[in-house]
């Protein structure tokens, strides 16, 4: 196994399981639709709430996607093979997470203008929202993957992952919604973006090592 052949196999598996990615996307859209229907469909409510709604839905969809990241590999034994293949496990995990991030976040960004229209977002704040998603979502994946690796040996681990990881997502949600609110008020929001970027970078550095510890403990 080489890093290159690993990445190629990862993308192949993602392509074969495109239905899962599509499901996560549909889940995301449905959660977003719940808010106008359940609370208030007027633009007075939706415009200020849109960034919060989209981020909450994103967080849930990401956790659903991340939870399944190691499940299959654990079952078919390929997770074990990653541990013993002699390559650096943190690096393999990093590559795996990046592949998953691309597969989930890129489609999400593509449908974002549509949702922005449905939630009456102005184009300036939609732009800000998409930038926060691009910059902030890596940290969601990197933190979530730790929880996924810890619970991979439990059959019904999804709720536990939510309980473990959702508290860690609060800062990302707060910084992102503040950024979009600033954009809506016509204020500069680069400071919030810098915070999001810092969180993503910090989790990018730390998470693969933590996840590697968790994976090693899980495959025994």
């Amino acid at each position, binding site marked *: 196994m080489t890093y290159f052949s690993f990445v190629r196999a990862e993308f192949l598996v993602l392509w074969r399981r495109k239905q899962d990615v599509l499901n996560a996307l549909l889940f995301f859209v449905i959660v977003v639709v719940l808010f106008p229907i359940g609370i208030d469909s007027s633009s007075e409510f939706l415009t200020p709430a849109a960034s919060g709604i989209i981020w909450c839905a994103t967080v849930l969809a990401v956790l659903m996607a991340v939870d399944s990241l190691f499940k299959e590999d654990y079952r078919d034994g390929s997770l074990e093979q990653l541990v013993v293949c002699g390559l650096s496990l943190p690096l393999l995990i990093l590559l795996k997470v990046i592949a998953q991030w691309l597969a989930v976040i890129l489609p999400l960004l593509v449908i974002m203008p549509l949702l922005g229209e449905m939630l009456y977002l102005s184009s300036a704040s939609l732009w800000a929202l998409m930038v926060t998603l691009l910059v902030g979502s890596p940290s969601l994946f990197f933190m979530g993957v730790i929880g996924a690796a810890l619970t991979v*040996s439990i059959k019904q681990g999804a709720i536990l992952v939510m309980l473990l990881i959702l*508290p860690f997502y609060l800062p990302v949600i*707060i910084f992102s919604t503040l950024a979009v609110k600033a954009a809506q008020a016509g204020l500069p929001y680069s400071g919030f973006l810098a915070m999001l970027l810092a969180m993503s970078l910090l989790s990018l550095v730390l998470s693969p090592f933590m996840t590697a510890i968790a994976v090693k*403990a899980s495959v*025994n």
Partner: protein
Amino acid sequence: MRWVWFHKLASPKWFYSWSNFWALPVFCFGCLCLAIGLVWGLAFAPEDYQQGNSFRIIYIHVPVAMLAQSCYLALGVASFVFLVWQMKMAPIFIKAMAPIGAVMALIALVSGAIWGKPTWGTWWVWDARLTSVLVLFFLYMGIIALQSALDDLVLANKAAAVISVVGLINLPIIKYSVVLLETLHQGPTFTLTKKPEMPPEMWLPLLCAVIGLYSFVAGLVLWRMQSEILMREHRSSWVKQEVMENGL
């Protein structure tokens, strides 16, 4: 030579006999201080000129809130020690500490709410410190849930340690982020750098209660660790001997 105590801490047997000696005195000292602090604070300390008698819940709320945070700090440090040096006592400490921390966070939330009703006119405010204590409570519950969900002891140890360390790194960020949201709460009651603004007859009982609660929890944790040691080491000869000689 200097590290001898550190290595000794790693031995359950040594720790057991050491804590056998210390647990009771520490616990009793804690109870005594706590009792003095609470009776003094609740019955004899002067009334606050703004908040009247309702401020007295400070003698419960502040020590408990401090403990809730300190417990997590201790958890995080122990977890780090475990992940780096594989120290055998660290997961036992984590197992013993997490539920106590969760209870402390819960009491802090409840007492805060009771305090909030007369002072702010509402049970709950989305204020920075309230929210972060709520998050802290979730973090504790996450650790407990994870430990109980994993059957394999080795995995449960590692998992709890990993999630506590991640929590410890995240907690300052969470705190900073919720501070960015609105803040209604009054400033910290105790600071190390400034002289307290309260009169001494108000803050002395508080100090007493804080010290008492720390010591109370320390004793409690020692006992919980002892029983956890007995459970985990039940196959070793010294445990059998210990139980035969001294009973449980």
